[in-house]
């Protein structure tokens, strides 16, 4: 269970949000709303522990994430504005090396399978730098297919994706929630997502 308590974030002169409280249980989907610059990315990064909050804390299973970094990190999958893939490596190598780093246990077939599913069949062995904007995003998203982490934190996962890919990703999120896991995300697009419990947090005041 993820809990956020009295969180405050200040960037430069702007207090983006303060006294923010919410929690996320298994099977729940949290959608973050807010206009450009309202602090969505900052909040997501704070929840992941990449940004230090000026006040308040983030708890995972009741304990501050800073005091159990390894446990929390192994339960987390974060996808930010950046894709986090190496442009010199092929899509396949990116996924293989990525999974080896985070503890391994993923076979080559699983990787090819994931790439096929996400719509990159036939392009697995191109260096990702020659891929189009949307194809790069897909490589990053295929990590979702390979990971066992119960908590997904997705920062505008739908950007650059075409209609088909948006739909595929939405189904993926729904399946993840069905298994009793948690997803926290933000997007400016209207996406059709059905989930058991949908929570919304808005940062516009």
């Amino acid at each position, binding site marked *: 269970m993820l809990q956020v308590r009295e969180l405050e974030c200040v*960037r430069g002169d*702007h207090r983006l949000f303060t006294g923010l409280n919410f929690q996320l249980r298994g099977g729940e989907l949290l959608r973050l709303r807010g206009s450009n610059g309202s602090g969505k990315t900052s909040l997501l990064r704070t929840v992941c522990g990449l940004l230090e909050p000026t006040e308040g804390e983030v708890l995972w299973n009741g304990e501050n994430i800073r005091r159990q970094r390894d446990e929390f990190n192994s339960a987390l999958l974060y996808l930010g504005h950046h894709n986090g893939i190496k442009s010199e490596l092929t899509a396949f190598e990116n996924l293989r090396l990525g999974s080896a780093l985070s503890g391994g246990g993923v076979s080559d077939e699983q990787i090819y399978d994931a790439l096929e599913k996400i719509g990159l069949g036939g392009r697995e062995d191109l260096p990702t730098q020659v891929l189009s904007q949307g194809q790069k995003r897909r490589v990053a998203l295929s990590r979702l297919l390979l990971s066992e982490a119960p908590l997904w934190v997705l920062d505008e996962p739908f950007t650059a994706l075409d209609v088909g890919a948006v739909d595929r990703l939405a189904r993926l999120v729904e399946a993840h929630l069905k298994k009793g896991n948690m997803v926290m995300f933000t997007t400016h697009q209207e996406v059709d997502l059905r989930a058991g419990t949908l929570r919304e947090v808005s940062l516009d005041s």
Partner: protein
Amino acid sequence: MVSENAIAWYHFSSPKNFYPLAGRLIPWFWGLAVILLVVGLYMSFFVAPTDYKQGESYRIIFVHVPAAWMSMFIYLVMAAYAIIGLTWKLRMAEMMASALAPTGAMFTFLALWTGAFWGKPTWGAYWVWDARLTSELILLFLYIGYMSLQSAIDDPRRAARASALLAIVGVINLPVIYWSVKWWNTLHQGASVSPTMAPKMASIMITTMLVMTFAFWMYTIAVVLMRARRVILERERQTSWVMEMVNADPQAEMKK
């Protein structure tokens, strides 16, 4: 007593309480600095005897040596603040560390400059690659690196923490550098010119140097407190107490 001290410490480690305290202390330190400087300069020029070998030019020692001492002291103090700031996340300590750096660099530069100025009449060259000179030069580089890193990062919080880390790395290296430079020089150069004067310095000279050192210290504290106040205003400008103060100030002016 102890706990009272601890509470006072804690109290003044918050920028909000530190700001007015510093404001009250600054005039005192300025006053002390000026008095000590006047006394020290009087002693250096009129009380201390003329050196039989070097004549009057040796009097530069009364600026040179205290400046050289200060340059090293200040680095240590700065690193200490950096450690405190990083481990206990005390913002005030971070700010003090960054407020100290320019003054430290200034004294380093002063030591180098007075030394070079002195070197011309005594050694016939502005610069020689002597161990002590070289390590002072490296110290200047460390200061400049610290300040450049700080000014290159826009976010003040990140700037303070990154440069604090650098200061700590530097302080671990400082003895190694000093000692290796010394070794290097003695290995290469048998009997080198070294900036040591007559072995027994007259006690009046030592006293003068100490007075000057204290003057420099008082000056440092005054300047650093002023700089810290400026840094506080800049970094805490979005907090309510700074805003209140900034908004209240014009009214206070008007009442006067």
